């Protein structure tokens, strides 16, 4: 009885999908009528029968600001698929319907939502929640139900501890691999000393942990090394030390709010290292608006650019995003999220909605995405290298590694005085 009640609540709660329009509602009603009168056997897939794709989003809470871009990509992908006539399920095109709930940025809610999506809403496919902690929370659920899901906005060496099989991560920016990329580029550009700043959040600390030994091995001196808590509001004291040390490069393992503080105050103090790396944030639209020209020369993490001609759909993704949302997508998260959709789409086109078949396909196939070929080993995407972006002349360019780069690293110009 409890089940029935909750079932009803669920039915109520499924988000209305306006995009599907009235005709679809009519079809759905007819379908329901047909099932009710026993004309159709339940379980028979009809071309009109939508494919339900479920996920949790962080509409409120800690991640709400950062997660906004993720939802936008999911919506964009759905629109594109439906515009193409629907999701190709082993040859049958069926419309996509998104079912999502707010997780309040709370990992406990994430667990609940994925259980609800699987057992209550009986979704056909799953997409990922936002952030590393939510991914790890959801990993337990998909493992229990053997429900394959491609993750996107998570990066941590801890992910490798998750039992592989039902979850994969599209990122190429695992902190250890990022460290290797950074040091390679340092060596190439003759950088002998750096200053290192790190937020005390998991990803930035992991990045630091892997970078420091790699630097030592390469004989690069760490002149300043500071950590700060996420609530920092001013970096003057730290940056004065950095300026006095006068390193060849500054590496700020930072998150958006402190990245903004770094950029603001490094410019004020005139920190003129030719290589300045700011980890998370510069790819976001707000940074371009807030800092404009001052962003030129800043290096950040990311392995995508619409300019790489070898990647099918890269430019199209950029254009359609700008068209729909009137601002450029994040070069970091947008491709990660979009790739996860593409991988799922290609797997479904090949083997249909059977979960075992999807799992096998994702685990073994190579996928062609907007960010090039993706291939998984365990939970990890080994097809995409850890990349570095640099803002050059107001544009985001991919400068590392050479295999995918569309431009070369340029020493950072002086901060604009205006």
């Amino acid at each position: 009885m409890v089940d029935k009640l909750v079932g009803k609540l669920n039915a109520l709660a499924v988000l209305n999908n306006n995009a599907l329009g009235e005709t679809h509602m009519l079809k759905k009603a007819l379908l329901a009528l047909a099932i009710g009168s026993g004309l159709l056997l339940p379980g028979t897939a009809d071309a009109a029968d939508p494919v339900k794709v479920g996920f949790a989003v962080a509409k409120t809470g800690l991640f709400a600001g950062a997660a906004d871009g993720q939802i936008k990509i999911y919506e964009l992908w759905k629109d594109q698929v439906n515009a193409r006539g629907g999701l190709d399920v082993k040859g049958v095109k069926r419309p996509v319907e998104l079912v999502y709930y707010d997780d309040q940025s709370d990992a406990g809610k994430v667990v609940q939502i994925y259980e609800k999506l699987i057992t209550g809403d009986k979704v056909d496919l799953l997409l990922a929640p936002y952030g590393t902690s939510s991914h790890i929370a959801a990993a337990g659920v998909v493992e229990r139900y053997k429900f394959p899901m491609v993750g996107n906005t998570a990066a941590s060496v801890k992910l490798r501890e998750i039992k592989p099989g039902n979850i994969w991560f599209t990122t190429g920016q695992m902190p250890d691999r990022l460290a290797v990329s950074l040091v390679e580029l340092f060596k190439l550009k003759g950088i002998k000393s750096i200053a290192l700043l790190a937020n005390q959040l998991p990803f930035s600390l992991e990045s630091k942990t892997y970078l420091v030994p790699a630097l030592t091995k390469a004989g690069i001196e760490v002149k300043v090394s500071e950590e700060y808590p996420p609530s920092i509001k001013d970096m003057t004291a730290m940056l004065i030390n950095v300026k006095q040390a006068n390193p060849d490069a500054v590496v700020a393992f930072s998150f958006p709010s402190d990245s903004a503080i770094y950029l603001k105050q490094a410019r004020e103090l005139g920190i003129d290292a030719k290589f300045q790396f700011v980890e998370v944030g510069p790819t976001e639209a707000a940074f371009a608006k807030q800092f404009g020209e001052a962003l030129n020369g800043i290096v950040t993490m990311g392995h995508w650019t619409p300019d790489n001609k070898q990647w099918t759909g890269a430019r199209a993704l950029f254009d359609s995003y700008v068209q729909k949302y009137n601002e450029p997508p994040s070069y970091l998260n947008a491709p990660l999220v979009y790739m996860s959709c593409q991988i799922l789409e290609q797997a479904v086109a090949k083997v249909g909605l059977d979960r075992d078949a999807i799992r096998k396909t994702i685990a073994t196939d190579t996928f062609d995405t907007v960010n090039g070929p993706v291939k998984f080993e365990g939970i990890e995407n080994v097809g995409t290298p850890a990349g570095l972006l640099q803002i050059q002349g107001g544009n985001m360019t991919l400068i590392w590694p050479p295999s995918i780069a569309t431009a070369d690293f340029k020493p950072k110009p002086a901060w604009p005085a205006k």
Partner: protein
Amino acid sequence: MQPVPIRTSLIFVAVIGAASFLPQFGSEYVVAVALSFAMWVALAQSWTVLCGMTGYGSFGHAAFYGMGAYVQVLTWGTLSPWLSVPLAGLVSCLFALAAGYPALKVRGPYFVMLTFGLAEFLKFSIIGIEATLGQFSRLIIGAPSPNALYLAMLGLAAAATLITYVVSNSRFGYGLRAIREEEQAAETIGIPVARYKLTAFGLSAFIPGMVGAVMAMRLSYFEPSQAFDALISFNIVVMAMIGGSDDARGPLLGALFLIGLSELLWARAPQVYMIVLGALLVFFVLFAPQGLAKQLFGGARRRAT
């Protein structure tokens, strides 16, 4: 303490008994909702033992929850998780006693802010400690099944409800309420005020510590800024406030009401849910300051005969 009425105890046993069979006939999702309901009941009941009864409002109960979770991840792999849970409760309790000794001399809104400050202080200290240890987040691999965790949480909710009920109807409870109403007068009629407040504080930290330890296994992930999230403290206060009352009914009603509301609203319109939540809080403070319990069951009347 007065004997527990037979009817109340029968209902209690029947509800707990029925709830413990939920995994057998309910879907996983129902169990998940029930687990979160049990969690909030356990937390709000614990809060009531201190704050509902003595009037010392805590905006820092996330500290106890976080401590519990931290103990669980620290002992993971070395200690049986089911041993870690009571240990987590104990550590939280000791922490409360140590912090409460000076803190409970601070009164009224200052106490509210102090508890918030202490919880944030603890959070940032643990962030710092974890960073120094080179541990930026911890994973729990191989946690007990969700059903086992649900039963554990149900047990905690039952225990917390029982504690609140027993305290509320005991001589100790009378003493605590007297402290809430008029601390100096309470002292004058022979109530050992300082010791009682401290005892209540310790008691109200014990279960949240264990809840944190169970939830760490449920989430299989620990990161200080999430485990010590101030939102946990706020949610507890809102539930207890909307439930109202200084006995075991208030937190039950508050948790039931909010979980129900969130199941109905949050999924379809998250921001609207939060707005409604805020509006409810305003409404309850202005028009029903004694909460749902008073609206449903009438005044705070209690006859000890």
